[in-house]
Protein backbone atom coordinates (compact mmCIF):
# COMPACT_ATOMS: atom_id res chain seq x y z
CA UNK A 1 0.00 0.00 0.00
CA UNK A 2 1.26 3.45 -0.73
CA UNK A 3 1.47 6.45 1.51
CA UNK A 4 -0.83 9.34 0.63
CA UNK A 5 -0.21 12.99 1.40
CA UNK A 6 -2.93 13.99 3.87
CA UNK A 7 -4.06 17.61 4.16
CA UNK A 8 -6.68 19.13 6.45
CA UNK A 9 -8.44 22.25 5.22
CA UNK A 10 -10.01 24.20 8.06
CA UNK A 11 -12.10 27.33 8.24
CA UNK A 12 -12.02 29.08 11.60
CA UNK A 13 -13.82 32.25 12.50
CA UNK A 14 -17.24 33.55 11.72
CA UNK A 15 -17.27 34.13 7.97
CA UNK A 16 -19.15 31.46 6.06
CA UNK A 17 -17.52 31.94 2.69
CA UNK A 18 -15.88 28.63 1.93
CA UNK A 19 -15.64 28.76 -1.85
CA UNK A 20 -11.91 29.30 -1.65
CA UNK A 21 -11.44 26.49 0.86
CA UNK A 22 -13.48 24.07 -1.26
CA UNK A 23 -11.67 25.15 -4.44
CA UNK A 24 -8.31 24.36 -2.87
CA UNK A 25 -9.63 21.11 -1.35
CA UNK A 26 -10.77 19.89 -4.76
CA UNK A 27 -7.52 20.89 -6.43
CA UNK A 28 -5.49 18.98 -3.85
CA UNK A 29 -7.75 15.96 -4.24
CA UNK A 30 -7.25 16.07 -8.01
CA UNK A 31 -3.50 16.16 -7.37
CA UNK A 32 -3.87 12.75 -5.68
CA UNK A 33 -3.97 13.86 -2.04
CA UNK A 34 -6.38 12.88 0.72
CA UNK A 35 -8.08 16.07 1.82
CA UNK A 36 -10.09 16.33 5.00
CA UNK A 37 -12.48 19.26 5.00
CA UNK A 38 -13.89 20.26 8.39
CA UNK A 39 -16.55 22.74 7.33
CA UNK A 40 -17.02 26.36 8.35
CA UNK A 41 -16.91 28.18 11.70
CA UNK A 42 -14.47 25.87 13.46
CA UNK A 43 -12.61 26.91 16.58
CA UNK A 44 -8.79 26.76 16.40
CA UNK A 45 -8.95 23.98 18.99
CA UNK A 46 -11.34 21.90 16.88
CA UNK A 47 -9.08 22.32 13.85
CA UNK A 48 -5.99 21.30 15.83
CA UNK A 49 -7.78 18.27 17.33
CA UNK A 50 -8.96 17.14 13.92
CA UNK A 51 -5.48 17.56 12.44
CA UNK A 52 -3.97 15.36 15.14
CA UNK A 53 -6.64 12.64 14.95
CA UNK A 54 -6.38 12.57 11.16
CA UNK A 55 -2.55 12.47 11.36
CA UNK A 56 -2.21 14.92 8.49
CA UNK A 57 1.02 16.22 6.99
CA UNK A 58 -0.40 19.70 6.33
CA UNK A 59 -3.04 22.01 7.73
CA UNK A 60 -4.35 24.76 5.46
CA UNK A 61 -6.42 27.51 7.06
CA UNK A 62 -8.71 29.76 5.05
CA UNK A 63 -10.06 33.01 6.45
CA UNK A 64 -11.74 36.00 4.91
CA UNK A 65 -13.03 37.82 7.98
CA UNK A 66 -9.86 39.65 8.93
CA UNK A 67 -9.30 37.76 12.17
CA UNK A 68 -6.24 35.97 10.80
CA UNK A 69 -3.77 37.78 13.09
CA UNK A 70 -5.45 36.15 16.04
CA UNK A 71 -6.81 32.82 14.72
CA UNK A 72 -3.86 31.69 12.57
CA UNK A 73 -1.28 31.86 15.39
CA UNK A 74 -3.81 30.26 17.74
CA UNK A 75 -4.01 27.10 15.59
CA UNK A 76 -0.19 26.96 15.50
CA UNK A 77 0.02 27.44 19.27
CA UNK A 78 -2.46 24.65 20.08
CA UNK A 79 -0.80 22.23 17.65
CA UNK A 80 2.61 22.80 19.20
CA UNK A 81 1.15 22.58 22.71
CA UNK A 82 -0.20 19.13 21.76
CA UNK A 83 3.17 18.02 20.44
CA UNK A 84 2.23 18.28 16.78
CA UNK A 85 4.50 21.08 15.59
CA UNK A 86 5.78 18.78 12.81
CA UNK A 87 2.54 19.41 10.90
CA UNK A 88 3.24 22.02 8.21
CA UNK A 89 0.89 25.01 8.22
CA UNK A 90 -0.24 27.22 5.39
CA UNK A 91 -2.92 29.86 5.12
CA UNK A 92 -5.03 31.62 2.57
CA UNK A 93 -7.63 34.34 2.24
CA UNK A 94 -7.87 38.10 2.28
CA UNK A 95 -4.63 38.84 4.08
CA UNK A 96 -2.82 42.18 3.76
CA UNK A 97 0.80 41.99 2.64
CA UNK A 98 2.04 43.62 5.87
CA UNK A 99 0.54 40.86 8.05
CA UNK A 100 2.35 38.03 6.27
CA UNK A 101 5.76 38.29 8.02
CA UNK A 102 4.14 37.92 11.44
CA UNK A 103 2.11 34.90 10.34
CA UNK A 104 5.27 33.28 9.01
CA UNK A 105 6.94 33.97 12.32
CA UNK A 106 3.99 32.26 14.01
CA UNK A 107 4.78 29.08 12.09
CA UNK A 108 3.08 29.39 8.69
CA UNK A 109 5.26 28.09 5.86
CA UNK A 110 3.24 29.92 3.21
CA UNK A 111 0.37 32.39 2.87
CA UNK A 112 -1.65 32.43 -0.35
CA UNK A 113 -3.58 35.61 -1.18
CA UNK A 114 -6.55 36.05 -3.55
CA UNK A 115 -5.70 35.25 -7.16
CA UNK A 116 -3.11 32.61 -6.30
CA UNK A 117 -3.74 29.64 -8.60
CA UNK A 118 -4.42 26.29 -6.93
CA UNK A 119 -1.43 24.83 -8.75
CA UNK A 120 0.77 27.04 -6.57
CA UNK A 121 -0.55 25.32 -3.44
CA UNK A 122 -0.02 21.87 -4.99
CA UNK A 123 3.57 22.82 -5.87
CA UNK A 124 4.18 24.16 -2.39
CA UNK A 125 3.01 20.90 -0.80
CA UNK A 126 5.00 18.68 -3.14
CA UNK A 127 8.14 20.73 -2.54
CA UNK A 128 7.70 20.55 1.25
CA UNK A 129 7.26 16.77 1.05
CA UNK A 130 10.47 16.44 -0.99
CA UNK A 131 12.41 18.56 1.50
CA UNK A 132 11.12 16.46 4.35
CA UNK A 133 12.48 13.18 2.98
Amino acid at each position, binding site marked *: *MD*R*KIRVLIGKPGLDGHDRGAKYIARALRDA*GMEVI*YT*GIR*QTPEAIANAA*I*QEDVDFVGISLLSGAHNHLFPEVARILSEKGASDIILFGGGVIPEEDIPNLKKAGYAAIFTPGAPASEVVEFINLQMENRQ
Partner: protein
Amino acid sequence: MSSTADIIRGVSEGSIRAVARALSMVENGTSNSSDILDELFGLRRGITLGITGPPGAGKSTLVNRMISHYRDEDRSVGVIAVDPSSPFTGGALLGDRIRMQSHASDPGVFIRSMGSRGHLGGLSGATRDASFVLSAAGYNPVIIETVGVGQAEVEVADLADITLLVLVPGLGDDVQSMKAGIMEIGDIIVLNKADNSGIDQLESYVKASLELMPSGLKRPEVIRVSATAGEGLDDLWAAVDRFAASHTEKERISRSAIKTLNEILKENGLLFSEKLLEMEYNGREEAEELILTGTMSPYAIGKNLLKAAEGMFEHNGSK
Protein backbone atom coordinates in the same frame (compact mmCIF):
# COMPACT_ATOMS: atom_id res chain seq x y z
CA MET B 1 7.48 8.36 19.84
CA SER B 2 7.82 6.62 16.49
CA SER B 3 9.26 3.33 17.80
CA THR B 4 6.88 0.39 17.58
CA ALA B 5 6.96 -0.23 21.34
CA ASP B 6 6.19 3.45 22.06
CA ILE B 7 3.24 3.39 19.67
CA ILE B 8 1.83 0.24 21.23
CA ARG B 9 2.20 1.61 24.76
CA GLY B 10 0.73 4.95 23.67
CA VAL B 11 -2.32 3.31 22.12
CA SER B 12 -2.99 1.14 25.15
CA GLU B 13 -2.78 4.25 27.34
CA GLY B 14 -5.17 6.05 25.00
CA SER B 15 -2.70 8.71 23.78
CA ILE B 16 -4.42 10.50 20.92
CA ARG B 17 -1.21 11.14 19.00
CA ALA B 18 -0.15 7.49 19.30
CA VAL B 19 -3.57 6.28 18.16
CA ALA B 20 -3.41 8.64 15.17
CA ARG B 21 0.07 7.38 14.24
CA ALA B 22 -0.91 3.74 14.65
CA LEU B 23 -3.90 4.31 12.37
CA SER B 24 -1.61 5.77 9.69
CA MET B 25 0.76 2.83 10.01
CA VAL B 26 -1.93 0.19 9.58
CA GLU B 27 -3.49 2.21 6.78
CA ASN B 28 -0.20 2.54 4.91
CA GLY B 29 0.79 -1.05 5.66
CA THR B 30 4.17 -0.03 7.08
CA SER B 31 6.57 -2.86 7.93
CA ASN B 32 5.77 -2.71 11.66
CA SER B 33 1.99 -2.66 11.24
CA SER B 34 1.51 -6.40 11.81
CA ASP B 35 3.62 -6.16 15.01
CA ILE B 36 1.39 -3.33 16.22
CA LEU B 37 -1.79 -5.23 15.41
CA ASP B 38 -0.45 -8.43 16.97
CA GLU B 39 0.09 -6.59 20.27
CA LEU B 40 -3.15 -4.61 20.18
CA PHE B 41 -5.38 -7.49 19.10
CA GLY B 42 -5.79 -8.86 22.62
CA LEU B 43 -6.77 -5.44 23.98
CA ARG B 44 -9.90 -5.17 21.82
CA ARG B 45 -13.07 -4.76 23.82
CA GLY B 46 -16.51 -3.33 23.36
CA ILE B 47 -18.61 -3.22 20.28
CA THR B 48 -18.26 -2.25 16.62
CA LEU B 49 -21.22 -0.67 14.85
CA GLY B 50 -21.38 -0.51 11.07
CA ILE B 51 -23.49 2.16 9.36
CA THR B 52 -24.18 1.64 5.69
CA GLY B 53 -26.69 2.73 3.06
CA PRO B 54 -26.97 4.63 -0.21
CA PRO B 55 -25.42 8.09 -0.73
CA GLY B 56 -27.57 10.80 0.79
CA ALA B 57 -29.35 8.50 3.23
CA GLY B 58 -28.17 10.60 6.17
CA LYS B 59 -25.49 8.25 7.48
CA SER B 60 -23.20 11.00 8.80
CA THR B 61 -26.09 12.83 10.47
CA LEU B 62 -27.13 9.59 12.15
CA VAL B 63 -23.56 8.92 13.27
CA ASN B 64 -23.48 12.43 14.75
CA ARG B 65 -26.60 11.61 16.78
CA MET B 66 -25.12 8.31 17.80
CA ILE B 67 -21.96 9.97 19.11
CA SER B 68 -24.09 12.30 21.29
CA HIS B 69 -26.05 9.34 22.63
CA TYR B 70 -23.00 7.35 23.71
CA ARG B 71 -21.26 10.46 25.06
CA ASP B 72 -24.31 11.03 27.27
CA GLU B 73 -23.65 7.54 28.64
CA ASP B 74 -20.11 8.72 29.31
CA ARG B 75 -18.53 6.34 26.82
CA SER B 76 -15.62 7.31 24.55
CA VAL B 77 -16.58 6.95 20.92
CA GLY B 78 -14.37 6.11 17.95
CA VAL B 79 -15.53 6.79 14.40
CA ILE B 80 -14.02 5.62 11.13
CA ALA B 81 -15.65 7.39 8.19
CA VAL B 82 -14.79 6.01 4.77
CA ASP B 83 -15.23 8.10 1.62
CA PRO B 84 -14.38 7.08 -1.94
CA SER B 85 -10.93 7.69 -3.41
CA SER B 86 -10.73 8.65 -7.07
CA PRO B 87 -9.71 5.62 -9.12
CA PHE B 88 -7.93 8.00 -11.52
CA THR B 89 -5.83 10.23 -9.26
CA GLY B 90 -5.95 8.31 -5.98
CA GLY B 91 -7.03 11.54 -4.29
CA ALA B 92 -10.02 11.84 -1.99
CA LEU B 93 -12.12 14.58 -0.47
CA LEU B 94 -13.10 13.38 2.99
CA GLY B 95 -16.01 15.44 4.25
CA ASP B 96 -17.78 13.32 6.84
CA ARG B 97 -16.42 15.45 9.68
CA ILE B 98 -18.58 18.35 8.53
CA ARG B 99 -21.69 16.71 9.96
CA MET B 100 -19.90 15.73 13.16
CA GLN B 101 -18.61 19.23 13.94
CA SER B 102 -20.38 19.45 17.27
CA HIS B 103 -17.99 16.81 18.63
CA ALA B 104 -14.80 18.31 17.19
CA SER B 105 -13.51 19.65 20.51
CA ASP B 106 -14.59 16.69 22.63
CA PRO B 107 -11.55 14.69 23.78
CA GLY B 108 -13.79 11.62 24.26
CA VAL B 109 -14.49 11.39 20.53
CA PHE B 110 -11.91 10.20 18.01
CA ILE B 111 -12.91 10.63 14.37
CA ARG B 112 -10.75 9.33 11.57
CA SER B 113 -11.52 9.82 7.86
CA MET B 114 -10.25 7.22 5.42
CA GLY B 115 -10.16 7.14 1.63
CA SER B 116 -11.25 3.81 0.13
CA ARG B 117 -7.91 3.71 -1.77
CA GLY B 118 -9.08 1.50 -4.58
CA HIS B 119 -10.78 -1.03 -2.32
CA LEU B 120 -14.29 -2.02 -3.35
CA GLY B 121 -16.99 -3.08 -0.93
CA GLY B 122 -17.69 0.24 0.80
CA LEU B 123 -14.66 0.19 3.09
CA SER B 124 -10.92 0.62 2.69
CA GLY B 125 -8.52 -2.32 2.91
CA ALA B 126 -7.39 -1.23 6.37
CA THR B 127 -10.76 -0.46 7.98
CA ARG B 128 -10.81 -3.66 10.02
CA ASP B 129 -7.28 -3.08 11.34
CA ALA B 130 -8.11 0.56 12.09
CA SER B 131 -11.18 -0.48 14.08
CA PHE B 132 -8.97 -2.75 16.22
CA VAL B 133 -6.60 0.13 16.97
CA LEU B 134 -9.49 2.32 18.19
CA SER B 135 -11.01 -0.53 20.16
CA ALA B 136 -7.68 -1.31 21.85
CA ALA B 137 -7.36 2.37 22.78
CA GLY B 138 -10.61 2.09 24.73
CA TYR B 139 -13.13 3.56 22.32
CA ASN B 140 -16.45 1.77 22.75
CA PRO B 141 -18.37 1.72 20.52
CA VAL B 142 -16.27 2.01 17.40
CA ILE B 143 -18.59 3.26 14.66
CA ILE B 144 -17.73 2.53 11.03
CA GLU B 145 -19.46 4.61 8.39
CA THR B 146 -19.10 3.15 4.91
CA VAL B 147 -19.06 5.00 1.60
CA GLY B 148 -22.53 5.30 0.11
CA VAL B 149 -23.19 1.80 -1.10
CA GLY B 150 -24.82 0.46 -4.20
CA GLN B 151 -26.08 -3.07 -4.20
CA ALA B 152 -23.00 -5.20 -3.79
CA GLU B 153 -21.04 -3.42 -1.06
CA VAL B 154 -21.90 -5.61 1.88
CA GLU B 155 -18.48 -5.93 3.42
CA VAL B 156 -19.17 -3.95 6.59
CA ALA B 157 -21.50 -6.69 7.84
CA ASP B 158 -18.50 -8.98 7.94
CA LEU B 159 -16.56 -6.60 10.14
CA ALA B 160 -19.07 -4.99 12.48
CA ASP B 161 -20.84 -6.65 15.41
CA ILE B 162 -24.04 -4.84 14.49
CA THR B 163 -24.82 -3.40 11.06
CA LEU B 164 -27.36 -0.64 10.57
CA LEU B 165 -28.68 -0.31 7.02
CA VAL B 166 -29.99 3.23 6.50
CA LEU B 167 -32.65 3.71 3.82
CA VAL B 168 -34.66 6.78 2.82
CA PRO B 169 -37.81 7.35 0.78
CA GLY B 170 -37.48 8.12 -2.89
CA LEU B 171 -34.13 6.57 -3.69
CA GLY B 172 -35.36 3.51 -5.53
CA ASP B 173 -38.42 1.44 -6.12
CA ASP B 174 -39.43 -1.89 -4.63
CA VAL B 175 -37.42 -3.86 -7.14
CA GLN B 176 -34.18 -2.20 -5.99
CA SER B 177 -34.69 -3.11 -2.36
CA MET B 178 -35.47 -6.71 -3.23
CA LYS B 179 -32.15 -7.27 -4.91
CA ALA B 180 -30.27 -9.97 -3.11
CA GLY B 181 -27.54 -8.97 -0.71
CA ILE B 182 -28.14 -5.45 0.44
CA MET B 183 -31.26 -6.12 2.52
CA GLU B 184 -29.72 -9.11 4.23
CA ILE B 185 -26.76 -7.23 5.67
CA GLY B 186 -28.77 -5.05 8.04
CA ASP B 187 -29.14 -6.36 11.57
CA ILE B 188 -31.33 -3.32 12.02
CA ILE B 189 -32.91 -1.44 9.13
CA VAL B 190 -33.22 2.29 9.79
CA LEU B 191 -35.78 4.17 7.74
CA ASN B 192 -34.44 7.72 7.94
CA LYS B 193 -36.14 10.99 6.94
CA ALA B 194 -39.37 9.63 8.44
CA ASP B 195 -40.88 13.11 8.09
CA ASN B 196 -40.72 12.84 4.29
CA SER B 197 -43.68 11.71 2.26
CA GLY B 198 -43.14 8.24 0.92
CA ILE B 199 -42.04 6.83 4.28
CA ASP B 200 -45.13 4.59 4.56
CA GLN B 201 -44.53 3.25 1.09
CA LEU B 202 -40.84 2.61 1.89
CA GLU B 203 -41.75 0.78 5.06
CA SER B 204 -44.21 -1.50 3.31
CA TYR B 205 -41.69 -2.25 0.54
CA VAL B 206 -39.01 -3.08 3.08
CA LYS B 207 -41.30 -5.24 5.18
CA ALA B 208 -42.61 -7.02 2.11
CA SER B 209 -39.13 -7.86 0.91
CA LEU B 210 -38.13 -9.05 4.39
CA GLU B 211 -41.09 -11.43 4.26
CA LEU B 212 -39.38 -13.08 1.31
CA MET B 213 -36.17 -13.76 3.21
CA PRO B 214 -35.29 -17.44 3.62
CA SER B 215 -36.92 -18.68 6.82
CA GLY B 216 -33.65 -19.64 8.52
CA LEU B 217 -32.35 -16.05 8.62
CA LYS B 218 -33.11 -13.70 11.50
CA ARG B 219 -35.38 -10.88 10.35
CA PRO B 220 -33.98 -7.44 11.15
CA GLU B 221 -35.95 -4.91 13.16
CA VAL B 222 -37.20 -1.98 11.13
CA ILE B 223 -37.07 1.40 12.90
CA ARG B 224 -38.29 4.77 11.62
CA VAL B 225 -36.25 7.83 12.57
CA SER B 226 -35.59 11.38 11.55
CA ALA B 227 -31.90 11.90 12.29
CA THR B 228 -32.13 15.62 11.53
CA ALA B 229 -35.16 16.26 13.76
CA GLY B 230 -34.00 13.76 16.38
CA GLU B 231 -37.18 11.67 16.26
CA GLY B 232 -37.40 7.93 16.83
CA LEU B 233 -33.81 7.76 18.02
CA ASP B 234 -34.58 6.32 21.46
CA ASP B 235 -36.27 3.38 19.75
CA LEU B 236 -33.18 2.91 17.63
CA TRP B 237 -30.75 2.96 20.56
CA ALA B 238 -32.95 0.44 22.36
CA ALA B 239 -32.92 -1.82 19.30
CA VAL B 240 -29.12 -1.61 19.15
CA ASP B 241 -28.88 -2.51 22.83
CA ARG B 242 -31.26 -5.44 22.37
CA PHE B 243 -29.22 -6.74 19.48
CA ALA B 244 -25.94 -6.26 21.36
CA ALA B 245 -27.33 -8.19 24.32
CA SER B 246 -28.08 -11.19 22.11
CA HIS B 247 -24.37 -11.99 21.96
CA THR B 248 -21.86 -12.01 24.79
CA GLU B 249 -18.72 -9.93 24.45
CA LYS B 250 -16.73 -13.18 24.31
CA GLU B 251 -18.81 -14.40 21.35
CA ARG B 252 -18.32 -11.11 19.52
CA ILE B 253 -14.57 -11.08 20.11
CA SER B 254 -14.10 -14.66 18.94
CA ARG B 255 -16.30 -14.15 15.88
CA SER B 256 -14.22 -11.16 14.84
CA ALA B 257 -10.99 -13.06 15.48
CA ILE B 258 -12.02 -15.85 13.08
CA LYS B 259 -13.08 -13.34 10.42
CA THR B 260 -9.75 -11.62 10.79
CA LEU B 261 -7.98 -14.91 10.24
CA ASN B 262 -9.98 -15.34 7.01
CA GLU B 263 -8.83 -11.91 5.82
CA ILE B 264 -5.22 -12.65 6.70
CA LEU B 265 -5.38 -16.00 4.86
CA LYS B 266 -6.62 -14.17 1.75
CA GLU B 267 -3.87 -11.57 1.96
CA ASN B 268 -1.21 -14.21 2.57
CA GLY B 269 -2.57 -16.25 -0.33
CA LEU B 270 -1.98 -13.28 -2.59
CA LEU B 271 1.55 -12.83 -1.28
CA PHE B 272 2.40 -16.53 -1.73
CA SER B 273 0.94 -16.53 -5.23
CA GLU B 274 3.12 -13.60 -6.21
CA LYS B 275 6.20 -15.35 -4.84
CA LEU B 276 5.28 -18.46 -6.83
CA LEU B 277 4.76 -16.34 -9.95
CA GLU B 278 8.22 -14.95 -9.37
CA MET B 279 9.71 -18.44 -9.10
CA GLU B 280 7.87 -20.07 -11.98
CA TYR B 281 7.45 -17.23 -14.46
CA ASN B 282 9.85 -14.47 -13.39
CA GLY B 283 6.95 -12.49 -12.05
CA ARG B 284 3.53 -11.27 -12.97
CA GLU B 285 4.49 -9.36 -16.11
CA GLU B 286 5.90 -12.39 -17.88
CA ALA B 287 2.91 -14.49 -16.87
CA GLU B 288 0.60 -11.80 -18.25
CA GLU B 289 2.59 -11.79 -21.48
CA LEU B 290 2.07 -15.56 -21.84
CA ILE B 291 -1.66 -15.03 -21.48
CA LEU B 292 -1.81 -12.10 -23.87
CA THR B 293 0.16 -13.91 -26.58
CA GLY B 294 -2.17 -16.89 -26.28
CA THR B 295 0.66 -19.18 -25.15
CA MET B 296 -1.06 -20.16 -21.91
CA SER B 297 -4.48 -19.64 -20.37
CA PRO B 298 -4.82 -18.10 -16.89
CA TYR B 299 -6.12 -21.49 -15.73
CA ALA B 300 -3.00 -23.28 -16.94
CA ILE B 301 -0.84 -20.80 -15.01
CA GLY B 302 -2.98 -21.27 -11.91
CA LYS B 303 -2.62 -25.06 -12.16
CA ASN B 304 1.15 -24.82 -12.55
CA LEU B 305 1.45 -22.56 -9.52
CA LEU B 306 -0.51 -25.00 -7.37
CA LYS B 307 1.60 -27.88 -8.64
CA ALA B 308 4.79 -25.98 -7.83
CA ALA B 309 3.50 -25.24 -4.30
CA GLU B 310 2.57 -28.89 -3.75
CA GLY B 311 6.03 -29.91 -4.95
CA MET B 312 7.62 -27.62 -2.37
CA PHE B 313 5.49 -28.95 0.47
CA GLU B 314 6.15 -32.61 -0.47
CA HIS B 315 9.84 -31.91 -0.64
CA ASN B 316 9.79 -30.39 2.84
CA GLY B 317 7.60 -33.17 4.21
CA SER B 318 9.94 -35.96 3.09
CA LYS B 319 12.94 -34.47 4.85
